[in-house]
């Protein structure tokens, strides 16, 4: 089933939970590795080279947020936060520091597995395509975004979001539609995910994030691509 795309790095200080997560994921065909301290994550990351990271935010040694930022500096690997806190502030902070999604404890294991699969599925074969929004050039096959020849680094999720908007520049996408197309979530997921990722995307690709031209908000509806 999962061959290449099966390595999951589990980071949680509660050993029982981590072990249980390992069991569940192994049952589903993944290849999990467990780390229980924040200061050990980076080393494990380099050693294991996982396809996805499950990251708890409350960690001894180094804070989960810092770990997330560190990983992001090096790689665009999908990161899913595990947190006991569902307050907006905590969620947004986590998402802004680089996570692609978050799951609140206690979660239904099936739900977690579905999300993991969704995140992993995203990085499958892209059709060679070249799009543009504003003054950006989007190379679908190469997963790269360039402005004036200069590449802008984006995580896979941010790239997918931009590509989705660029493919249909006339269409306004609601947050629910984006959650389905980009994140692959069909039912009642948190639209805050979309909000924070749009912010992240804007901070990377917009000339002036306060006056966005690439990713434009349509009040009361959602987002769409700005004029070419």
């Amino acid at each position, binding site marked *: 089933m999962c061959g290449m795309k099966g390595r999951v790095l589990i980071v949680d200080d*509660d050993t*029982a*939970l981590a072990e*249980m*997560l390992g*069991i*569940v994921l192994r*049952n589903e065909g993944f290849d999990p590795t467990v780390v229980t301290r924040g200061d050990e994550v980076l080393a494990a990351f380099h050693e294991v080279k996982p396809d996805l990271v499950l990251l708890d935010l*409350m960690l001894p040694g180094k804070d989960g947020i810092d770990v997330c930022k560190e990983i992001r500096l090096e790689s665009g690997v999908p990161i899913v936060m595990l947190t*006991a*806190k569902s307050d*907006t502030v905590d969620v947004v902070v986590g998402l802004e520091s680089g996570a692609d999604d978050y799951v609140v*404890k*206690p*979660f*239904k*294991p*099936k739900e977690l597995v579905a999300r993991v699969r969704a995140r992993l599925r995203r990085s499958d074969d892209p059709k060679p395509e070249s799009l543009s929004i504003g003054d950006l050039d989007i190379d679908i096959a190469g997963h790269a975004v360039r402005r004036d020849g200069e590449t802008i680094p984006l995580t896979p999720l941010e790239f997918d979001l931009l590509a989705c908007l660029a493919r249909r520049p006339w269409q306004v996408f*609601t947050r*629910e*539609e984006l*959650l*389905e197309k980009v994140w692959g*979530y*069909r*039912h*009642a997921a948190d639209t805050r995910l979309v909000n924070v990722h749009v912010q992240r995307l804007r901070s990377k690709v917009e000339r002036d994030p306060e006056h966005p031209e690439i990713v434009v908000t349509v009040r*009361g509806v959602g987002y769409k691509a700005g004029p070419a």
Partner: protein
Amino acid sequence: MSTGTGPEAPGLRWRLLGALTAVGRSTVRVLGRVTAVWQRSIQLRVVTATLALSLAVVVLLGASLLRQVADGLLDSQREAAVADATAGINTAQLQLDAADDAEPAAVGQLLTQLVQDLVNRAGPGGLYDVVLVGSDDGDPSAARSTRVSRGVDPASVPTALREAVVAEPRVFSTYTEIVYPDDDVRPGLAVGGQIAAPVGGLYEIYYLFPLTEQQQTLDLVRRALATAGLLLVLLLGAIAGLVTRQVVTPVRLAARIAERFAAGRLEERMTVRGRDDFARLATSFNQMAGSLQRQITQLEDLSRVQQRFASDVSHELRTPLTTVRMAADVLHEARADFDPAVRRSAELLQDQLDRFEALLTDLLEISRFDAGAAALETETADLRDIVLGVVESALPVAQRTGAGLLTDLPETPCTADVDTRRVERVLRNLVVNAVEHGEGRDVRVSVRADEDAVAVCVRDHGVGLKPGESSLVFHRFWRADPARARTTGGTGLGLSIALEDTRLHGGWLQAWGEPGQGSQFRLTLPRRAGAEVTRSPLPLAPVRPAEDRGLTGVGGPYRRLAASAEPPTRTDGAPAPARPGVGRG
């Protein structure tokens, strides 16, 4: 009706009426404002009262003073005048008695000379004038042989005096107005008596004393009294104002400080000066303020501690709960391989874990409300969309009981500033409750909006509520039917949380129900954030249309009729593009 004087007449009348009404209205307004100022200011009332009372006193005193002065002045003058006149009359009589002439002409001359002599006796100053009148035929108005000095008008002698003098041989006096030549009228005193002439019978002599000086003195006194009185009244008013100010100022200061304290500045205290009553007031206030501040701070601290505790507890509980859940899930997945007892255990474990988790979430939510830590994140949303989303997600539950979910949404937008997550939670709770207690009958959700508020009603035709239960139903862990509790699940906190969510918005959440008739829950929310709800666009007790009666069960005529209005079942997550109304016939 009047006979018209032309088409302008009615217009004029209207204008007059309008003007009068305007004047009347503005008078009322001014009166109202004056009354308001009157009621608000102690100083004004005291000063006005002082002014009024002192004015009354001053007027009374002044009047009596003036009267006494007048009496004093005039009485002494009168005595002197009467004495002079009496002496003069006696002298005149003696002179006449001494004259023996019987000739009328000589008598006449003698009389004239007499008048002159009498006047000259007053000296060159002319203190008085004399009038001699004959009264032979008893008719006092006869001007026969009237002699006057210096051209004084004999009519200056009042008729009443003449009558009195004629009647008795005594000296009478009265006040009168003396008319001098050139129409010079002065106030004066007339004193008169009889004299007998040897020939020609009885004559009357009148002395006329002018009282101009006395009058002037009285005028002067009156003016002085008036001025002094006015000054006195004004000064008293000023004094009253100053004195009340001494009392009112500390009171106003105290009121201001109390207002600031009430507004939240708990460190406000009054300055204590001296040892008088104000100092006591200030001291007591400060003690009260200090005690209140301590208590409030204590309560705030407690609340913070409790919130912290609740959040710590929940955090601590969540991790082991996640592990337990995962373990239970693994067992549940593999239950086919177990023997029946173990399999059943795995199923029960899974179910109860669901319940436990729901209870934990609800408890945490309630504790957040209790600690005052719940925050509202508002955005402008259309209630119709929220209702559609909730109805959609409740379809699986409804299908299990066979109930239909009907929506009655207006064509106009029903937007409001709400926290969508919370409103969704409230509506989900109401709809799921309605389905679970609806006994398989349809549940109908209606939305209406007016200018200030938006309302959602969830109506079911199930067991209903007994009288008095419509408020109990929102209490924590209250169940209508204890037996039902353990079968349909639910934590018992759903409606309490819904109520708190509603309260956060400043809205209303109310229930109506009748045994056997079902129940209706109504959520009313203000359209603008921060506003309060005063009325609801929907009635709480449902209007009973004819089709609603005689509903017996699943498959009744009402259901079939409305079945076409059911929102289509969706399998994907796309939101509903159209807004269905109710298809009623």
